[in-house]
Every structure is written in C-alpha cells, then in structure tokens.
C-alpha cells in the first residue's frame, strides 16, 4: 500500500512553503525565500516520484489492473448521511501521473524563478503564491471527492488570480487577473450546479461510489438520473455537461477561453506553470476523472466534449498564426493543444482498445506539460533578455541565446509532432483515436496539427532568425546573458524530457479501465500528419527565416481573414459588450436605481406621509385652553349621548 504520510506530505509541503513565505517572508526571509521554497518543492517532487514509482511498479497493479487506492480519507463536512465532503487521497494512474507532472514542472519553475525574478521586491510573496498554487493543484489531482476537487479547483483559480496580478501596479495585469477569475468563476457556476445535480441523483459525492453508482446499469441511482429529464435531456447528461462547463472554463475551451491570452500578464514562469502545464489541464483531468460516467452513461455529453475540444483546437490554431506577442502565441497554442486532449477524451470509449483516446489524451497531457513549460520558460529567457513580449522587437537571437535557442527548437519540433520527439507519439495516438471514431474531428485535428507546426515555427524563426538583433536599451541594462545556471538548468532538463518522454509505453500505465493498453505504431497512418507538419514548418521557414515582406503581403491578400483572426474573432468584444452594456447597464444600474428610488423611496414615502399627516393634525394642539375645553365638552356630551341613547 502507498504510504499515506508521504502522499500527504507531497501535498502539504507546498502549503508549508506558502505559510512560511506568507507569514514571515516579507520581514525575515527576503533573500532566502526562493531557496527554502525550492527545497520544499524538491522534497515534494522526490516524494511524488517515489509514490508514482511505487504505484506503477510495486503495489498499484492487482491482477493486471491498476487499482483505485484510497490511502487517506477524512470526513471534512458531513451534510447528510450520504453526502459529505471528504478530504482524501485517491491514487490511480492519472493521479500518479499528474503528481509527477505537477511537482516536476513546479520544481522547474521554482528553480527558474530564482533567476528570473531575482531582486524583485515581492520575491517571498511570489514564492508564497507559487506554494499556494502547487498545494491547490496537488490537492486537486489527489481529490477523492467531487466536492474536494471543487474546493481545490477554486483555490487554483485564486492562486492563478494572485499570480496573474503579481505586477499589481500595472492596470493591464489587474484587468487580466480579474478577467481570469471571473470567467473561470462563471464556468465554476456550471460545475457547482453539475455537482449538485450529480450528488442529488447519486446520493454521494465520493468519486469511487459516484462512478460505480452511475455506471452500473442495474443501479437505481443511474435509472433515476436517466429517467429525470429537463428540456428532453436526461438529468445525468445535464449534470455531466454542467461539470464539463466548469472544466471548459478552467481549460480555456471555446467560448470560455478569453481569459487565457490575457493571463499572460503574469510573470512568465507562472504562465509556464499555471497557464500551460498544470492548471489549464485541470479541465481535461476532470473529464478524465469522471470518464467512466461520460463514456458509459452520458455519451451525448462526451460528444459535446469532443466537439468543443476540436473546435477550440482549430480556432486557437488559426488565431495563433496571426498574433505577434510571443506569450499570446503560446497561450493560443496551449488552448489548441488542450483542445486536442479534450477531443481525444471525447472520441474515446470506455475499456480496452476502444479506450485509446483516453490514453492518448493523458499521454498528450503529459508530454505537452513538458514541452509547453519548456517553450514558456524559453520565451521567458527571451523576454528577460529583450525586455519585450513583441515578436517585432526580436530576431536573430540564436547567437545571443544559444542554449535557449536549442531547447526552444526541440520544444517546437516536439509540439509540431516531428518524430522522434515527445509530441509526435502522443499526437499520433490522438489522431488515430479520432480517425477510428469520428472522421469530422479527425480532419479538423489534421488541419490543426499542420497549423500548429506553422505557427510554432513562425514564432521560432521570428525570434531566433529573421533580422539580426539590435538591442534598444543596451546602455541602460547591459547584457546579462541568458540568465545563468538556475534559468538554464530547467530548460535543459525539460528539453531532455521533451526528447525522450515519447518513448514511454504510456498505454501500459494509463488507460481508461486500468488494464494495460498496447498501442501499436502505424507507419502508414502517421505519414499524413507528419507530412502536413513538415509542410507547415517549411512554409514558416520560407516566410520567416529571413526578413522579407512576404508575410505582410500574405496578410494583405487575406486581409479580412487575417483581421478577424488577429482580433481573435472578436470574442472579447462580444464579452465586453455583454458584460459592460448588458450586465452593468441593463441589470446593475436599474437594480441600484430601483433600490434607491423605489424600495428606499417607499420607505421614505412612509416617513414623509407620516410627517405631512402630523403637520395637518397638529393644528388641533393650538395652545388655547378654551379650545381644549370645547373638545373636552363635545367629547363628554358625545359619550353621554352614546350612553343614554345607544347603550341598551
């Protein structure tokens, strides 16, 4: 059995880092904050590797099937007999894999930030937030209870908010962090309602019980969930769709993706960690976690997952071709790759060979984390050097930044799906799965992968080749090289990963039902994607290798299309219209007006009426004794009359 203490330590060490840095960092640990946090992160990483090793090779497999183990479970909040939020640890193949990914990338980012953010005033705060994020993300992946996942889901959201807003004095960063939080929050609303729906029908919040109850055809819970319907769709499907809305928000799926490009306002290592490798795949993880229910009981919801994924992939790839901010290109590429993972899950079935998509999705999640983190960290090194995010300020940097250049190239090759780099293997599996189950999605994916190669190499050539580099502010800061050992080491380590990760026999470890899945390599199948990828690369080479006016010409020929893609299909503007014009002007303002004038007006009107009335009747109180005497007499006579004539 796994060691529960170790597993808890994996999660709690980053929390410790957060607490130490948050409470004492600013006053006592100004210089040592980074080192202490990195050490804690390192410990956590070691334990994660140890646990994953133990799980995959020692105790995880029983009779050839990977088990879902629960080494730790604590009753946190009991609602009713069946429903309770437990804080627990659920260890299964995807958890083990995610533990490795999260701790590893987090460690790399911890190390990298030592160099990248050196001398920042809020250095300890930064590490505190990193710790908080890592803690929440780890808590999310080990969650054994759907409400636990929601709790950590919110926590990663807030740590992402804090880190995007790290440069809080920059108005654009403030706007971006608010946007990120609110958009994902909106999606979480769906998630929350989804949880409520599922918990109502399943009568439990615990993952294992939930999956078991909602997948076995004879269970009463499943029957009632399928029987109840709303707008002609079964309650279960609604629940799963709503849960997926949450996942789509966090994973920046169309149309809830608008926060991701703006989130690039955060420090670049943060983008690598949160907005590339870990947090944004939480949505994929969530769908994978509930995959049996999706696949067995709610195939309609899974179909939606597939199409949303495929559309997002293609949509983001088109936009990425036109962006000039390197981090935004990477952001859209992330969105596109997550789209790949999503639709891979979407086209998958449960169990055996049919579950190829599931394995492929997780595989891609794994490799993508490595090469996308690498790309971001590389971009960070470039930005650190150039002090600009814009492609136009770059060019010819291969001489100045040799290591970055080399590792960036590897990452670009990996993401473009060139053999034998990691991305090739995972993407092939995804395409194969799509090919087997859904031709439409397969063709969309194929086009996307061609576009991916194109925009990645457009980025690569624009940064490292094209024109030669002329620094603008040379006199101000001088040359500080590539950023030293701490920044280069993670790049090198990750590039090794990006080269070799593809050779891991992933299907053996991670599959939809826990049994080993041997993926075969189909040579003739991979010809098309690779050829398309190479075409993309050569197109980029032709257009961007040297400085020329071909790209501009192309842009002006395809003017309309280019403009639309450049403006990200105006989705942001639509959102802005909805929030500013409709939400604020049509609901917020009338509500405030109504409160001030109608509701409060009524209260004041009551007061005023009383006042006016008293103004009227106070005249009786004239101060003239004789008038009072008259009233008195009239009263007495009146009463006397009553007594004499009416009282019978």
């Amino acid at each position, binding site marked *: 059995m796994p060691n529960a203490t170790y597993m808890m330590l994996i999660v709690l060490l980053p929390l410790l880092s957060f607490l130490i840095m948050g409470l004492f960092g600013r006053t006592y640990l100004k210089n040592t904050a980074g080192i202490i946090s990195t050490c804690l992160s390192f410990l956590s990483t070691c334990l994660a590797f140890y646990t994953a090793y133990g799980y995959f090779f020692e105790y995880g497999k029983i009779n050839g099937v990977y088990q879902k183990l629960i080494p730790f479970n604590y009753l946190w909040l009991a609602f*009713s007999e069946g429903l309770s939020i437990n804080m627990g640890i659920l260890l299964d193949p995807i958890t083990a894999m995610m533990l490795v990914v999260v701790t590893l990338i987090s460690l790399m980012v911890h190390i990298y930030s030592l160099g990248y953010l050196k001398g920042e005033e809020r250095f300890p705060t930064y590490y505190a937030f990193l710790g908080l994020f890592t803690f929440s993300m780890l808590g999310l992946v080990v969650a054994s209870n759907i409400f636990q996942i929601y709790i950590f889901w919110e926590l990663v959201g807030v740590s992402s908010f804090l880190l995007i807003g790290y440069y809080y004095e920059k108005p654009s960063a*403030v706007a971006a962090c608010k946007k990120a939080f609110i958009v994902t*929050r909106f999606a979480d*609303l769906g998630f929350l309602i989804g949880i409520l729906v599922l918990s109502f029908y399943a009568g439990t919040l615990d993952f294992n019980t939930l999956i078991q109850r909602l997948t076995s055809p004879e269970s009463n819970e499943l029957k009632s969930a399928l029987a109840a319907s709303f707008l002609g769709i079964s309650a279960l499907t609604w629940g799963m769709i709503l849960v997926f809305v949450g996942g789509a928000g966090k994973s920046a799926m169309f149309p809830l993706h608008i926060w991701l490009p703006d989130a690039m306002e955060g420090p670049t290592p943060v983008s690598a960690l949160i907005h590339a490798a870990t947090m944004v795949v939480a949505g994929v993880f969530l769908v994978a976690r509930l995959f049996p229910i999706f696949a067995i009981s709610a195939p309609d919801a899974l179909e939606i997952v597939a199409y949303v994924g495929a559309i997002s992939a293609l949509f983001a790839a088109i936009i990425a071709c036109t962006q000039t901010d390197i981090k935004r290109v990477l952001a859209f590429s992330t969105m596109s790759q997550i789209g790949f993972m999503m639709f891979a899950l979407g086209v998958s079935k449960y169990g055996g060979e049919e579950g190829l998509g599931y394995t492929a999705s997780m595989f891609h999640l794994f490799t993508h984390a490595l090469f996308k983190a690498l790309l971001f960290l590389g971009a960070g090194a470039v930005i650190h050097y150039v002090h600009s995010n814009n492609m136009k300020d770059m060019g010819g940097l291969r001489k100045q930044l040799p290591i970055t250049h080399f590792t960036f190239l590897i990452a670009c090759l990996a993401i473009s799906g060139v053999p034998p780099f990691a991305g090739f293997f995972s993407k092939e599996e995804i395409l194969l799965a799509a090919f087997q189950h859904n031709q439409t999605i397969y063709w969309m994916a194929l086009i996307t992968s061609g576009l991916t190669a194109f925009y990645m190499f457009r980025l690569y050539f624009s940064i490292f080749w094209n024109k030669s580099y002329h620094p603008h502010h040379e006199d101000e800061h001088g040359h500080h090289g590539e950023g030293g050992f701490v920044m280069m080491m993670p790049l090198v380590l990750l590039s090794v990963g990006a080269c070799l990760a593809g050779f891991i026999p992933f299907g053996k470890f991670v599959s939809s039902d826990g049994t080993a899945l041997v993926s075969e390599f189909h040579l003739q199948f991979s010809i098309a994607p690779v050829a398309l990828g190479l075409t993309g690369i050569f197109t980029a080479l032709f257009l961007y290798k040297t400085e020329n006016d071909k790209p501009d010409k192309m842009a002006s020929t395809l003017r309309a299309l280019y403009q639309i893609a450049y403006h990200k299909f105006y989705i942001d503007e639509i959102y802005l219209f909805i929030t500013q014009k409709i939400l604020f002007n049509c609901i917020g303002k009338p509500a405030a007006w109504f409160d001030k004038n109608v509701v409060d007006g009524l209260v004041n009107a009551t*007061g005023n009426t009383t006042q006016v009335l008293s103004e009227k009747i106070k005249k009786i109180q004239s101060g003239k004794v004789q008038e009072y005497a008259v009233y008195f007499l009239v009263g007495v006579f009146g009463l006397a009359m009553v007594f004499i004539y009416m009282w019978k």
Partner: protein
Amino acid sequence: MNLLLLILIPLLTAVAVFMMQNNNQVRWIAFFGSAIQLILSLGLYVVYTNARNHGDTAQMLFEQNMPLFKSWNINLHLGVDGISVAMIMLTAFVVVAGVLMSWKMEKMTKEFYFLLILLSMGAYGFFISLDLFVLFFFLEIAVIPKYLLIGVWGSGKKEYSANKLALMLMTGSALVLVGMFILYFGGGKSFDILQLAQTTIPTWTQHICFPLLFVGFGVFTALFPFHTWVPDGHSSAPTAGSMFLAGISMKLGGYGCLRVATYLLPEGAKEYANIILLLSAIAILYGAFATMMQKDLKYINAYSSISHCGFVLLGIGMLTKVAITGAIMQMVSHGLMTALFFAVIGIIYERTHTRQVNEMGGLLKVMPFTITLLFIVGLCSLGLPGLSGFVAEMTVFVGSWENPDTFHRIVTVAGCMSIVVTAVYILRAIGKTAMGPLKEEYNNLSDAAWHEKLATIILLVGIIAIGVAPFWLNDLVSPGAELIMQKIQMAK
C-alpha cells in the same frame, strides 16, 4: 455553567465603564470585559460539547427558570443549544474586535463604550433566553443603543440614517410584539419557547402569526424589501457600530426567524415558504447586482450583506435540515466576515479619509497588512474554500438541492448565480482599492496599528477556523437544525 454570567459580565462591564475616570481606563475595562466574555463563550463551547459528548440529549442545556411576572407567566428562562452557542461565540468575537477597533475613539469615549457593551449584553441575552418576552426585551436593548451610536458618533447623513434604522427596526419589533401576543393567547398563555413548541397551535393562528414574526425578524436580517436601512445605517455608523450592526444585529433577526417563527410555527412556515424563497432569491441576486454599482466601500459591503443575508433566509425557507444548518453557518460566517470587512474599511478610511473606491488605488504597496486582509475578506465574501463563506454557502446549496421540484431548483440556481456576481463586485472593489498605480497623496500612509491588527486577527482566526475545519461548527449546529426539521416534518 451559569448562563446568567453571560448577561451579568457585560452589565458589570458597562457599569464599570461608566464609573471610570479617564478614557484609557474606559478602554481597558471595556476590553477586559469583552475579553472575559470571549473566554467565557469559548468555555461555554467546550462545556457544551463536553456535555453533549457525555450523552446529554436534552434539547437545551444549562437551563434556568425563574419567574419574573407570575400573573402573565413571564419567566427568566435561559438555556442554550448548539445554535445559540454558535451565535454567542460569534457575538463574543465581534464584540472584542469592535472594542479594539474603537480604541482611538475620542468623542465621548465613556458613553460610546457604555453603549457598545450594553448592545452586546442585549445580544447575549437574546441568544440565551427561551422566553419570548425576555427575548423581546433583549432584542430592544440591542436595538436602541444603535440609534445613539449612529446618531452621535456617525458620519455623513447620520441623523437621517439613525432615524431610518431605528424606525425600521422598531417597526420590525412591533410586528414581532404583535405576533408574540397572538402566539401567547393562541398557544395557551405562555411565552415559553419550549412550552409553546409542545403545544399544538391552531392552524389559523399559525397562518396569522408566522408572517408577523418572520417579517418582523426579517427586517433585522435585511429581508427584501425591508432592507433599505442596511446601506444607510452601515455607511453612517462608526466602524464598531457597523461591525456590530452587520455582525450581530442582522443575526438577531436570522436567529429569531429560525428559533421563533419557523420553529414555533412550522405550519405557517410551510405555508409561506415559497414566498420567503422568492424574496430571499430576489435579495441575493438583486443585492449583488445593486452592489456592482456602488462606489463607496461601506455601501459595497452593506449591499453585499443584503445579498449574503439572503442566503440565511434562503436556507431557512428551503426547510431541509442541511439548508437550515447552512443558514446558521452562513449567519456565523457572515457575521465574522462582514465585521472584518468593516474593520478593514475602517482602517483604510481612517488613513485615506475617503471611502470612494475611485479615489484609491495601489494601497497594497503602503499598507500590506490591511490590504492582505482586504483580499482575504473579499475572497471569503466571494466564497473561497478555506474561508468560512464557502462552507456556509455550499451547505445551503446542497441542502436546497434536496427539494426536487422545479421551483426550488430555479431558486437555488438563482442563488448559485450570485457567486459569479459577487466575484465581479468584490474583484472590482479590491482591484480599484488595492491594485493599480498608487496615488501620490497616499505615499505616506501607515499600516494598521496594534489594536487594529489584534482586532482583525481575532476575526480572521474565526473565519479560518470555520473555513479550514468546518466540521466542528457543523457538529455544533446541525442537531439544533435537526430538531427544528423534526417539528416541521411533523406539521401538516
């Protein structure tokens, strides 16, 4: 444990405060008095849970019953269950923090502290009394000092606000009084809550009484559309006044709605549940949307209180055990949270001399401690896990969802939607106040002083204690909610 202590200590403190010679003595006496009360309330929690763990299953513990006015059958009947213990602890936390936050009050210090302590006595008495008449007496004690606190020590259009608050709350009290008497004559000439709970009250009495009592108490807890005292009252009150108002007074109403209206008149509650739900759903969403347009920090928090207190009424109206538990947790959570929010606003206001969010910016740089708290309390308000707001709201939602019909579902979804709107206004407020470029004139602002730090940390401890480990609060209040539910289920 003798519950009379809970009333006597504030009373003695108030008297002692009145006899002190200088301001310094007044402050320290008030602080010690409230600190003893805090320790006492924590002790009460320990003793209470101990008794429960040892199998004491009586509905109320530490009961005392002495006749006050025989011919009317009015008794000083005291006793606590988990719900009251939770509310007493909330009161104790808020009172200590409020006393500390007023440390620099120079205008008529003695009278100010006297009223604060008197008000707290009213609240304690309210939560422990089991006799409607005594309950009403303490309710009034908790209301009247507020008129003076706002009218004398307030800011802005304080006379208007004080009048409005006092009149609206008095209207509420009047309704309660009428309802109480109808109940008295309809339910066998007794004011005793436990006795009334045993007697069967005729259906028509319930149908008349329930709206009177519920609306009467509802005014206190910002029941739509009787909520307009909230924004004006809160924004004009001094910092400690706002803290008490939002942290304690609004909870008196919620507690009354639950303990008196719903518990004693279950048939009435069933009859009017849908109206309550409708009103509270409106309050939740409408309060949230109205908050979005506010520019004054205190108004923002006041309107958000309307929205948050909507959850209390929503939970009660849902008539399920989990939802009622959630409503109580929301009362405790909101009390702590909103008191902390007002404390933070008070700290900021004292330094910037403005509460307009547009006039601030980048304050994180100069007052890191205060603004970190602003972040935390804002996040608590929008329901971040790990802080108390999340636990309470989720309990209400889960409980609400237990009602399977469409109407309840729609109301619940409407309630859920507020978490997004809340995020919008909270982030907007925080973004404008704390983030962005720092204004020139704020360059030399100082961070919180020791008493402010202590006050806020005390409240923060409460918030985190509920947020990180909600099980203790849940265990404390859910048996009480269970009893109320049993009564409701037995009713027709």
